[in-house]
């Protein structure tokens, strides 16, 4: 029987890895993958809390998060394709037309 705290610490660490990847890496693909890692860490928290407290609600929330993640990936990758068509690179620092 693993304590709830251990699951929470693990998911916080996973979220932290995703956060660091998102801020530090400039390759847009890697940044997207880091976002996916963060969403998964949130899912792990939901499921662990659901097991330790109420019941099926956490699983329902995790299902909704997975659906939102799928939508986000579809739109995000389409934006990335459009960016690549325009700039011939996926480096996030190259997309700065709106910057003064």
């Amino acid at each position, binding site marked *: 029987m693993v304590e709830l705290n251990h699951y*929470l610490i*693990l998911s916080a660490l996973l979220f932290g890895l995703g956060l660091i990847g998102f801020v530090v890496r400039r390759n847009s693909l890697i940044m997207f993958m880091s976002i996916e*890692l963060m969403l998964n860490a949130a*899912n792990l928290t939901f499921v662990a809390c659901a097991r330790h407290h109420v*019941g*099926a609600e956490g699983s329902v929330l995790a299902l*909704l998060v997975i659906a939102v993640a799928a939508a986000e990936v579809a739109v995000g990758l389409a934006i990335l394709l459009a960016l690549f068509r325009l700039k011939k690179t*996926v480096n996030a620092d190259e997309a700065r037309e709106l910057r003064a």
Partner: protein
Amino acid sequence: MSEALSFYFFGSIALLGGVNLLFCKNPVHGALFLVCSFLAIAGLFLGLNSGLLAAIQVMVYAGAIMVLFLFVILLLNLEVEPHQWMSPARVASALVAITTIGLVLQPFLFAPKPAVEAEPSLVVPPTAPNVAEVLFRQYALPFEVVSLLLLVSMVGAIHLARRPQRTEGV
């Protein structure tokens, strides 16, 4: 006992996948490390008695979403780019991220432990029928909103990914 074993096994695999994603040079390698991480998280879901979510995690995340990633990497035809690690902005942002995580972890690591660890009161075990019961009765409206979101994002993705020249003549 076996749950603790599988927790540490899958947890360390998930963390290693995340660390390797952080340091990988080639996006394809990053995608494969992320698949490892997702599969390990599916294993953690199994350890939490949530077999339905483990199956969905494998099919949707490790299957569909990562295949989409790999297809896009294939389409983009990238060269491996040289990266400079130690720019001051990067170090600063990494420090901010690490501090944030430290603040998040601090209550778990240094809080006094509760005297009695509450036993899980599994009123409703997360099997597929129970999850469906809650999802379609109590959370029917969010479910419909999510389906609308998926439709909108599908239309948006098709519109964004289309070549602009092709619509000129129509």
